[in-house]
């Protein structure tokens, strides 16, 4: 599914470095001296990644389907939080995570368990430590 090697990484790195160098063209000497020096070193390292011998093996992405599923759920959770608030979004995220994993617990208990964890975290951080979590509905 994914075929990524050091040389692909090096090529992407080179293109990014080139683009970043371009954004510095109108900056003062003090503003661009450090970043330019670093970008040039990075470009040399990218060239090494592309052309060196003996490092042609592919990266192992065997478990990526799981990471994509749960990572996607996590992105959805983070995206929804400002709209529906911390408690609802966290309850939904925890419940969905546990249900997707087929956690050995009845669904209504999973929901209750998720709600309790969300409430405990909210009380601890928002009420105890003064962190102003997103509170649209709660």
């Amino acid at each position, binding site marked *: 599914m994914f075929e990524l090697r050091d040389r692909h990484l090096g090529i992407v790195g080179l293109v990014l470095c080139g683009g970043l160098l371009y954004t510095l063209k109108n900056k003062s000497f*003090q*503003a661009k001296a*450090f*970043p330019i020096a670093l970008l040039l070193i990075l470009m040399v390292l990218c060239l*090494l990644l592309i052309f060196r011998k003996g490092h042609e093996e592919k990266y192992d992405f065997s478990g990526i389907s*799981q990471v994509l599923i749960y990572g996607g759920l996590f992105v959805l959770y*983070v995206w929804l939080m400002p709209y529906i608030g911390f408690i609802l979004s966290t309850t939904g*995220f*925890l419940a969905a995570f546990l249900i997707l994993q087929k956690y050995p617990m009845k669904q209504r208990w999973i929901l209750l368990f998720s709600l309790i964890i969300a409430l405990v975290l909210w009380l601890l951080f928002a009420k105890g430590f003064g*962190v102003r979590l997103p509170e649209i509905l709660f």
Partner: protein
Amino acid sequence: MDTILSLLVDGFSVALHPECILAMVVGTVLGTIFGALPGLSATTGMALLLPIAYQLDLNVGLLLLAGIYCGALYGGSISAILLGIPGTAAALPTTFDGFPLSKSGRGSEALLYGLYGSSFGGVFSAFVLMFLTPVVAKVAIKLGTPEMFALGVWGMAIVSSVVGKDWVKGIFSAVLGLLVATVGADPVNGSPRFTFGSYYLIGGFALVPMILGMLALPRVYGMVESFQSSNESYFQASKERKFFLRASDVFKNIFLLIRSAVIGAFVGIAPAAGPTIAAFTSYNTAKNASEEPESFGKGNPQGVLAAECANNAAVGGSLVLTLSLGIPGSTAAAILMSALIMRGVQPGPMLMRNNAHVVYTFFAGFLLVNIIVFFVGHLFVQAGHYVLKTPAKILAPVIMVICVIGAYSESNNMFNVYVALVASAVAYLFGKAEIPTAPFLLALVLGSMLEANFWAAYTITFGKIWTVFQRPMFLFIFIVAVLTLFAPVIKEAIKKIKT
């Protein structure tokens, strides 16, 4: 000396009052919790309790804040060891060996090593505060921006020990970290770089979301990957439940502890990044001095001891600056300083003369707080045992939620959560490409300090930057940095000559 001793006796007699002891215990417990929770820190805890400290008697209030400060520094090691999430930047090197120990079923033991290292470093720094404040203050005042730059270079030289097997990828990671540290306003003119019009990036990337994204979330993705092979547990079952370390386990590492504490006390003088550089430097020195350097990073308890001892010993250095010169060595020290000023006590060169009793009560209390950390810490070690017993399928989403809260709490906006999310995707790819994240994070911590101090040194030398080599302290630190950079090569060469 007699005066110091009599002032200390008076200080202990005040600090041992029941209300002072209660304040220290409460402060230590709260501080440990603050330090252990990612995103919260000693600064958050001290800021929250500052109004309460103001209502209390001056000595009681100061000792409450000292308890939070020391407790939080120790607390940072708990999440670093149990979950691989450093509660503070200074606990970053603790994760290198602490987390592998936890994964292999030695979590309680790792927590105990962290606790004993922290307590030893803390007690050492208390003695530095008590007896060497005037001496350390003289050294501290010689640390100008060129020396701060040299300290940053020393910190970066440690990259040589964390680059891993593939040096190209290790250096790639470190340089990328330095580049990310340049995002935001440049330190001379305030001209924005790589901000792409976002005002959130003017101040650069905040450290906490980056640490959570680069270290904590990829560990959760690792847990999620392990769910596929359901027979395999992410954390191995604990082999034995440890309540204490044997005296022999501590004494066989006594030289390592003393060396780490000395490094911590010296490097801790550097404002802001002091404890972080101290922890990395000490870890690196322990690795180079070890007969089994290859075991570091795979679960060597000496790595935990060295890092934790040094970052706690660094507190003394930062407090020396705060109390004797009126220069806060860290944000937490700045809050302590404001607590003094609010009560009409002015930190600075005249503090020892005008308010000697307050200062020596604080010194005595500071020693007691570090002893309390030792006792209270044993309770947290046992609580940590239960964290590791939690099924990974529950632990993984809860860690994700705590990471979100940690990143959000940095500035109470979602931008930092998005930063953590993107950083976690980059770190996941780094993991697949076998690019180490430690050099990236080390460079990120030190990058802005390096650049700002370089330009400050450039300005004070009127562009003749090479003249900084005429400063003895700069030269000393720079030589140590070069030796640190080439230490693995030198050690290897000596080994070859011997064989």
